[in-house]
């Protein structure tokens, strides 16, 4: 029941808002959006305590089931999604991008949320794929219609790049899923853990390659990341938040759920390649961040670096590595959401966020936004006590002692590279802090300064995300304790 509510309420309301877009007043749409997101959040909390399962035959002729459920791996992500869903709809009360009716915008936000929730709750591999595809069209509308109003051509291009890359990835994943389902004779994720592990090594390898490459596009893992900066730069603030905080997590969640859990032997063969790609992504993202001028783009590249840590954690195949990947997911979701809200607000008011232009110091003109930016940057560079630290630290430790049969020397090299990448993170975060937070002199007359302070709904969102970053950073056990048993069960089942 709770599971049906948490998927259906945002989906149905989102669909209604999109189809009846022009007949709905903006205020009504905003209220409806927030209400739907709150209902979904309440349903998630309810579901977290009651642990319900929905299992209906959807297409019985072909063995497709509507099977939803929660476990320790999906629960933190479902909570994160519902929380971010509330925050983006609240944020839409203060910032409505041009390009279409407000109801359509909010409807698309809700549809993305519903698709992501369905993806994390799906307990059937084919249903997982369908839910995975569900977010594509609304996200495409968000980018190509509601994106950066200044450059129509770039907006179209970014939207197309997003949807085509992701569709390529997910269709490759579909072939992997169909191969797996065909060979293992079941599409239930729980049964696949044992049925997939029993497959011959060659089959496992083929399936693992298809699944990993397909999902790596979504994560994104270097060198398949090129759609991400364009999408982030043009998407409206709420779209960027959804993209960074939720959509990327669907990829890393899929990596844990499908190749790693279902075809462990095949995944173990290609794990070093995934680890190398992750480490290269960390360094590559860091280097680009050192020279990138557009602040939104810079945060997008820092996402590539952070997701590199997640990929590295998954590649180690050890319990610690998986824990690192899962907490890294949550941490990155909160931190990137915070940074995109802060920077998106700046871009909306300044018109652009070119770091080459020295603007009045943010610490003086907008102390709240300035503090939130500083907190986000500090978290992103991995200050202990803030959320990202645990993901990075544990990923490096896990890489030093990889699980199973993984080549120790290679993974230790990767650990060193990842640590170097973390140092790059310090450098670029301080660069941004220097240009924006410290900034230039503040002109004497107040009228010459653009007011960029976060107010009203936006400040509420910023505060909530800041608290989240602190809580996960100070008490990582809130996440680790939930994921721990599930990870142990997953790896235990795989052996």
């Amino acid at each position, binding site marked *: 029941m709770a599971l049906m509510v948490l998927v259906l309420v945002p989906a149905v309301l989102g*669909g209604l808002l999109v*189809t009846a*877009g*022009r007949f709905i007043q903006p205020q009504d749409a905003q209220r409806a959006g927030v209400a739907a997101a709150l209902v979904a959040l309440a349903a998630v909390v309810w579901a977290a305590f009651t642990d319900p399962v929905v299992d209906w035959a*959807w*297409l*019985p*002729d*072909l063995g*497709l089931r509507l099977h939803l459920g929660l476990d320790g791996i999906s629960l933190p992500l479902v909570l994160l999604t519902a929380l971010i869903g509330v925050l983006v709809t609240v944020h839409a009360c203060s910032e409505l991008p041009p*390009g*279409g*009716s407000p109801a359509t915008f909010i409807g698309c936000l809700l549809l993305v949320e519903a*698709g992501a929730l369905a993806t994390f709750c799906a307990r059937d591999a*084919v249903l997982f*794929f*369908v839910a995975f*595809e*569900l977010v*594509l*069209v609304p996200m*495409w*509308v968000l980018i*190509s*219609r509601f994106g950066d109003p200044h450059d*129509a*051509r770039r*907006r*179209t291009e970014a939207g*197309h790049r997003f*949807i*085509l890359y992701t*569709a*390529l990835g997910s*269709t*490759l994943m*579909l*072939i992997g899923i*169909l*191969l797996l389902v*065909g060979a293992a004779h079941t599409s239930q994720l729980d049964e696949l853990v044992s049925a997939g592990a029993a497959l011959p090594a060659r089959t496992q390898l*083929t399936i693992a390659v*298809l699944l990993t490459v397909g999902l790596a596009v979504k994560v994104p893992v270097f060198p398949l990341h090129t759609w991400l900066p364009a999408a982030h730069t043009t998407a409206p603030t709420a779209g960027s938040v959804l993209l960074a905080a939720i959509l990327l997590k669907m990829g890393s969640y899929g990596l844990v759920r499908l190749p790693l859990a279902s075809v462990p032997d095949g995944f173990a063969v290609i794990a070093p390649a995934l680890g190398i790609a992750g480490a290269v992504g960390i360094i590559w993202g860091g280097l680009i961040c050192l020279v990138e001028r557009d602040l939104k783009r810079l945060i997008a590249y820092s996402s590539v670096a952070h997701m590199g840590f997640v990929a590295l954690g998954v590649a180690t195949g050890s319990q610690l590595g998986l824990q690192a990947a899962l907490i890294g997911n949550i941490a990155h979701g909160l931190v990137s959401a915070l940074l995109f809200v802060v920077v998106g607000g700046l871009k909306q008011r300044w018109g652009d966020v070119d770091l080459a232009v020295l603007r009045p110091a943010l610490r003086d003109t907008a102390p709240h936004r300035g503090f939130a930016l500083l907190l986000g940057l500090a978290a992103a560079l991995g200050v202990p006590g803030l959320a990202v630290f645990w993901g990075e630290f544990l990923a490096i430790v896990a890489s030093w002692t990889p699980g199973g049969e993984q080549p120790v020397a290679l993974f230790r090299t990767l650990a060193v590279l990842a640590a170097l990448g973390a140092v790059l993170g310090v450098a670029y975060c301080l660069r941004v802090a220097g240009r924006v937070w410290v900034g230039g002199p503040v002109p004497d007359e107040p009228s010459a300064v653009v007011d960029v302070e976060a107010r009203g709904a936006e400040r509420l969102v910023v505060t909530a995300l800041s608290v989240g970053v602190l809580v996960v950073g100070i008490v990582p056990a809130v996440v680790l304790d939930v994921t721990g048993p599930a990870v142990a069960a997953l790896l235990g089942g795989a052996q």
Partner: protein
Amino acid sequence: MNLTLDWLALAPTLLPAAGVLVVLLLDALLPAASQPARVVGLLLLLAGATAAVPGALGTSERPALSLCMPGAADHACLWSAGPAASALQLGILGACAAVLVLGLGGDGESLRDGSVEVVLVLAAATGGTGVVAARDLPAWLVLLELATVPTVALVALRGNARAAGGALSLLTTSLVSFAFLVLGAALWLLATGSPVLGPVGLRDAAADPVRRPLLLLSVVVLVTGLAFKLSAWPFHAWTPAAFTGASTPIAALLATASKLTATGAVIVVLTPVIALTGTPQVAHSIAAVLGGIALVSMLLGSVVMLRVTDSVRFLAFSTIAQSGWVLLPLAAMNAAGHRAAVGYVLTYAIATLVAFAAVAALGPGEQAGEQAGWGIAEQDQAGPEPSGQAPLEEGHMALGQGGSESAGRPLAAFRGMLRARPLVGGTLGLALLVLAGLPPGIIGLLAKVQALRPVIDVGLWPLAVVAVIAVVIGIAGYLRWVAILVRPAPESSPVGARPGAPTSPRRDTPRGAVAVLGIGGVLLVATSLLPQLLWGLIG
């Protein structure tokens, strides 16, 4: 020879055939009234569709059989309609009914000479429903031509130069394909010694090293000949010419009922051949031919869709691309593949009918749009409309010629449709997403999943990997149109006023188009939520 007859099993074909006679009789008695002819035709098509429902809901173990030799086993029946064949009959009759409804609009798009065209549509329905169930070779050939020849006439009857060109290219290709089919039929007879498309003599032929090449050649030649009707490569070239030459309802007939017929015909040929999977030499060659045609068709169609600027041409290349998707699961050479192909083609037919209804809802289009390079307006997001458009439109209205209605329906004419006319825009958008295989068009996505599944299950996954490229290119193509739908209408020329001036009565969406859009839209939404509604028909 004594045959046992089951009239109910034959009803889906006999009812439209009776319709032909009734309409001709009506026309002889009341030559002036064409409306009763349409109504009678529509009713008989719907009656036939109703008769096909029990077969579709039945099981494949006990197909509806008729024209059976006394005392012989099942395969000696010359008429066998299992669930898949009945579902195709249902689809063909439904599509023909939708075509008649589209033509009922009473505007410039209506059929020119009601009775004649109703007769031709009914004849095509008779042939189509017959060919999917017929098992004896001569009847199969005749019914196939009965399904084809009326479409040539329907295209030509429009009576302008474009229509003549389209009909000519349709006729030429159809003659070539008929030659292939007759050759294939002759080879089949030679190889198996049986004039029945059934298992009789097949195994012996496959086992005999002398007759095996004959059998193989016969199946390949038959499939290649049918590729023409499916608009598959290498016989796809007639499609854009015939679609743009025909009036919109007739183009819809070519795109849907003809494709359903062709799919059924391919399956009739391939069903006995499944039994030969034990003879890899034969099975592998046929699978290779099917897979090759499928991949080339879907890639070719999808790539051209990226550049086409006219909506009907776009749908023509969409048909070519989708024909590849219909053929792909057949390469698996098993019953699951056949079911997947039927499910896919039915999904495709509903979505394509909706798309053509949306084109018809636009009313008579501007002239000669596509040659003038409307691409500028589409490629450039915020680009202004080409300045030549308004005068052209006015000129067309002033002259009032109904000459080339569907020539020049640029995709740009759909700009802002989602906001200006939500019923047309929203349903068309859903149909395009179904064709692209993207949610919310979940039924289209599931159809693609089911089409890939049998291919992967038999180990042909490299074929599927190539198909991935076609999926992505296809998405890019369909999204071009969807992007035009969701784009805000330009300030200068409000889309609601198009294609006529606000005062023009043509501004009203034709009633026939609204009906087809509504029913098609409901079907797409319902099957997306409960896909079993569609797949349950195939058994």
